[in-house]
């Protein structure tokens, strides 16, 4: 069966510090991978998605970046965090097909102070 791991679960970082959130998927090959951000228990905003190694599409211009160094590894980074980067970050995977469901990790609660 497929599983998705996302860490850390919570993170408190000062403004201007770097960020690295990691997500790995097991039990499937060549998944689509996604990073979403969710503000205060509301809807999900798509940040990045990837259809393959080294292929990253950005949906929202910001000071965040994403990388996919391996087939089942997806990393969200920032060189300098802003207060507005605080939120709940969710990684997800799916197969490439319309209607294919997203399978989410348990998220990372990021607080920038």
């Amino acid at each position, binding site marked *: 069966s497929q599983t998705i791991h996302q860490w850390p679960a919570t993170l408190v970082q000062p403004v201007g510090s770097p960020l690295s959130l990691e997500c790995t998927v097991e039990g499937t090959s060549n998944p*689509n991978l996604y990073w979403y951000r969710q503000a205060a228990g509301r809807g999900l905003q798509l940040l990045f998605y990837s259809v393959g190694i080294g292929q990253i599409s950005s949906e929202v211009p910001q000071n965040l970046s994403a990388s996919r160094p391996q087939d089942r590894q997806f990393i969200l980074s920032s060189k300098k965090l802003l207060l507005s980067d605080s939120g709940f970050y969710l990684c997800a995977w799916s197969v490439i097909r319309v*209607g294919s469901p997203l399978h989410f990790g348990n998220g990372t609660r990021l607080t920038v102070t």
Partner: protein
Amino acid sequence: TQLLEQSPQFLSIQEGENLTVYCNSSSVFSSLQWYRQEPGEGPVLLVTVVTGGEVKKLKRLTFQFGDARKDSSLHITAAQTGDTGLYLCAGSGASGGSYIPTFGRGTSLIVHP
């Protein structure tokens, strides 16, 4: 503008009551999904609907996809405290476009004992 509008935003009811939440759009979707999210966790898929007019039942939950595939509803019969959570709808393949789901802002449901 939000592609998918969910209503109501918040719902607070007593155990045993019935409720309906809505997901509306001006776009036609190839498929629509409903997720439930509990605090501090990632969303979990409840159902996928793909055919206009389709009705799916999951125990006390009934999901309907509109005939025109622009809207959907979720009806819960005899709500239980375990139904508490954020209900998100997500559509993909809008107007023949992307397979990547677009999320509504969600309906936050609280069921009181």
